[in-house]
């Protein structure tokens, strides 16, 4: 049903109906924000990326042939917007201090404060492209081939990015576990 509502709004928006596009944006904006803030690890940057992506989507909407595919199409635009924000941040001002993403605990509250800190640091060390694949795969629950299709890269590239990103995060987790284990042995 949501898809049909989207398709109807897309058809109206393609005719230049700003009201329809506004409704469309409000129906997908939160999900876009959730994706962008997880990729960029900064709420302000994520807002800029989503705003830019929505305006680009409006401008390019008539190029979208299948209205049912609006959201995947938008996600690809959003991905490019996130890449642009990440590059611009890095190059325009190196001195900006990134604030940590405000933790809002999820239903699966298995993370300790140390876990979050460890994963946050490890996540920020990944490239924005690797973070994107992780977010689409682990957060949106897409398969690797779906991720590749969603962000417009070959399946092999998606697999490679996911492999390296996951390995890097696992290495951080394992290293921390080993360090904790060693510390406990010394205390015992």
């Amino acid at each position, binding site marked *: 049903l949501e898809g049909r509502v989207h398709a109807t709004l897309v058809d109206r928006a393609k005719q230049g109906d700003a009201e329809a596009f506004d409704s469309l944006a409000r129906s997908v904006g939160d999900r*876009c924000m*959730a994706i962008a803030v997880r990729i960029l690890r900064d709420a302000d940057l994520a807002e800029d990326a989503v705003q*830019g992506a929505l*305006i680009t989507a409006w401008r390019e909407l008539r190029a979208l042939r299948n209205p049912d595919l609006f959201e995947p199409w938008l996600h690809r635009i959003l991905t490019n917007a996130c890449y642009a924000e990440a590059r611009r941040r890095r190059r325009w001002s190196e001195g900006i201090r990134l604030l940590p993403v405000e933790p809002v605990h999820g239903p*699966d509250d298995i993370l300790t404060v140390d876990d979050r800190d460890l994963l946050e640091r490890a996540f920020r060390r990944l490239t924005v492209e690797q973070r994107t694949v*992780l977010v689409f795969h682990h957060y949106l629950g897409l398969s690797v081939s779906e991720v590749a299709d969603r962000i417009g890269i070959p399946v092999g590239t998606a697999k490679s990015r996911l492999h390296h990103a996951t390995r890097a995060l696992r290495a951080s*987790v394992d290293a921390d576990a080993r360090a904790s284990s060693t510390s406990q042995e010394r205390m015992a």
Partner: protein
Amino acid sequence: MTKSRDPDRLIRAFLAEGQTDLPDQIYDAVRDQIERTNQRVVIGPWRTPDMNRFFALGAAAAVVVLGVFIGLQLFGGNIGGPGPPVQPSPTATPPPSPSPAPTPQAWAGPIQVGRNEATISGIRFSFRISSPGWVRTRWEGMINLFPPGNWIGFLNSFDSVSSDPCAGTTTAVGPSVADMADALTTIPGTEAEAPVDTTVGGLPAKLVVFTINDDIDCDPSSFWIYGPDSAYPNSVNSTIRTWVFELDGSRYSIHSNQEGTDAEQAQEITEIVESVQFE
């Protein structure tokens, strides 16, 4: 992390946390912007737009050529449709009435039409925006007009220009305004006009206008204008305008990027910079 646990589960739990709401002000800003942004007319196969390089140059050129043709056919030269969003003519905007003192703002956020005040590196100044759509970015001093491509970076203090923009190597520039203006005309991969005398905030200044050649050896996002991690053009289809001036014994510049050649957008950028007043 004191227990051995499934790393994949930890990653999923980590990603499940975090903000999921887009603030209302962003929806409002999008609504405001789309009402003044034309939708692109589709003339060819679908291609996902890239935020930095919306179209391959050839495709863009084709759009522009066809757009001009269609525009001339339909409107007799009063062109709409394809191309960059049409900006309200600055001359059509009523001049601001005598207004109260500008309201100080934190840097990031929407920009009001009218005079806006800012402080960068301790220097207080104001500038006037004549049409909506500009936003202050998270990078202090930088304002963007969405869609990205047109932006202005206020009060930079570069002391070099690139000798090889793709490699990130630089040439030191002498201390004067003229030294920097002259140096900006020498950047490989660009075509610059001779510096012209102008003013910024009533101060003597030089304006250098240059374009990025379409045969540069690297992606535009790696084409450093003043040296590594400085500024780069949004595309080879960009026109850079740099105003160089001296304030209280220090040299500053205001750098702008215009994607495309829309005359009204060029005028709007120029008017914003020319409206600068120092406190």
